[in-house]
């Protein structure tokens, strides 16, 4: 219950920050590009619309996850509002979890509205929408959950600016981890072990990228999908747990 009320409060706070205005930009982008691109391109118009839609859903969400996520904890500390919370009978991990769920809720609403917008534009253009699109969006959302958790982890022990830099770094590296493995294979024993270690510890964000499958109608096996989602949730749990441990020992001054 405590977790939920903190979560709802965070959600309301996000709304007060006029965070959902990004939806307006998304809508303009979708409608504008659907008009423009039909004049500019040659063949395969469907593909372009789906690509732009999914990529912008992904991009906006990642930006929100990073830049709101890093402020979740540090803002409370800076404004000293955290004292009023930790002095109440709320465990620190509950505070952390509530904050996390609040932002996840915001992201969920945001993503849902964007998907509805995308589906509307697609159907207005007579582009068929298949289940795969929703599967891809689900995985995009799991990516948001992982990134939000990472942003929050950093914000429990460093400044906002540093958290932003670290989280962006994790986002970039997360999309390149397969290369880490390849590099490792070209190194000696120690190097390979280090690279392999990094490969398994860092999130493999490319796993959440089904955008290509959607445009080429390449079905993904349900077992694979379930495993990817499970991987994302487990990774999130791991990061949140680490954040909780760090936050528990943190001294607010």
């Amino acid at each position, binding site marked *: 219950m405590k977790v939920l009320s903190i979560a709802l409060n965070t959600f309301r706070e996000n709304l007060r920050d006029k965070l959902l205005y990004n939806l307006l930009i998304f809508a303009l982008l979708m409608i504008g590009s659907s008009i423009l691109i039909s004049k500019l*391109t040659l063949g395969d118009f469907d*593909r*372009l619309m789906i*690509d*732009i839609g999914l990529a912008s859903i992904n991009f906006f969400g990642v930006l929100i996850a990073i830049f709101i996520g890093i402020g979740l904890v540090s803002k409370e500390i800076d404004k000293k509002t955290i004292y009023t919370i930790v002095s109440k009978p709320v465990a620190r991990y509950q505070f952390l979890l509530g904050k996390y769920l609040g932002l996840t809720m915001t992201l969920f609403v945001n993503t849902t509205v964007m998907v509805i917008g995308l589906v509307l534009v697609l159907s207005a253009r007579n582009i068929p929408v298949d289940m795969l699109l929703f599967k891809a969006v689900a995985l995009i959302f799991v990516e948001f959950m992982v990134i939000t958790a990472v942003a929050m982890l950093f914000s429990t022990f460093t400044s906002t600016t540093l958290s932003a830099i670290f989280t962006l770094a994790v986002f970039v590296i997360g*999309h*390149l981890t397969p290369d880490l493995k390849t590099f490792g294979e070209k190194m000696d024993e120690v190097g390979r072990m280090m690279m392999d270690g990094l490969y398994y510890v860092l999130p493999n*964000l490319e796993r959440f990228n089904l955008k290509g499958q959607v445009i080429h109608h390449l079905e993904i096996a349900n077992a694979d999908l379930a495993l990817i989602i499970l991987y994302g949730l487990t990774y999130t749990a791991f990061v949140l747990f680490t954040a909780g441990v760090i936050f528990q020992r943190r001294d607010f001054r």
Partner: protein
Amino acid sequence: MAASLSLSGHHRIPPLVLSVLCGLVSVGLLISIWWMQSQLDQRQDRTLAQMDELAHLPKGDYLKPVLLGYHHLGADLLWLKLVQVIGKRQNSMNEYEWMAHALDVITTLDPHYAYAYYAGGVILGDLANRPDLANRLLERGHAANPTVWNIPFLLGYNYYFLLADPAKGAEYIMRAAVLPDRPAYLPGLATRLAAEAGKPETALAFLEARLQDTSDPEMKEFFANRMKEVMIERDIKQLEGAVELYRTAYGHPPTSLAALVDGRIVRDLPMEPFGGEYRIDRETGVVSSTTHPERLKTFFRRKKDPTYLYPRIEQPAYGFSKTW
């Protein structure tokens, strides 16, 4: 607001005048930005600038990781850019080589972008007259999308019409003819090509396979008929070869086909599959069938020599600036 307050405080400018002044200044700045932008556009040929950008495009293998999972969108944007350049009325040969590079990058970013291969193949093959570049692109496309019929189809077309290699053309059209969603005429076209390429055995084997594969009685009849036509083609080829042997052995052409058997050139004469017979023109030595006097061929007659003028290249011979 703070600035306006201090300004009006020190110089006693009425707020209305101040806001009008601010408005004028910002409009003036906007207009000058617009003017400078359009000046720059005029000074620098925009298409040239676009071509330059294409030239400095890094290889797809390097570009892909940089796009952090957005490589499909990257391929789309690049495609949009390419389409604008193709839209020019005339393109120079350098531009076509650039296009080949851009298509390479697009299809490396998204190897399943089947339309880009096909459209690229048409542009490079027919418009640029660079079947070497077109076929390299299409070969990659065929390897990455083995179930898309129009890529091997276009490869076959390029080999047949642009490179004057009907055997290879037939081979690719045959590959296309067994793929899903291909048009119904494709198997027939493939056999025509193979027959003309001097390989009736290939055509026969292909037709046999198609015949086994089809349940539709009309199609079965079509394939059976076409097989007989190809047999005629095969027989005529063999007979003409025998006539040539006879001529070298006896110094004059045979008066009839039966003379080939009498002269021990062939053991016996082939049966005409439609129930007619084979005849020989005594003057020219040309063999024909009574039921099918027309030879099986594609109905295309080349008006000019193949327009392939450029050296074949295995590795990209175009040098791109390494300064990107």
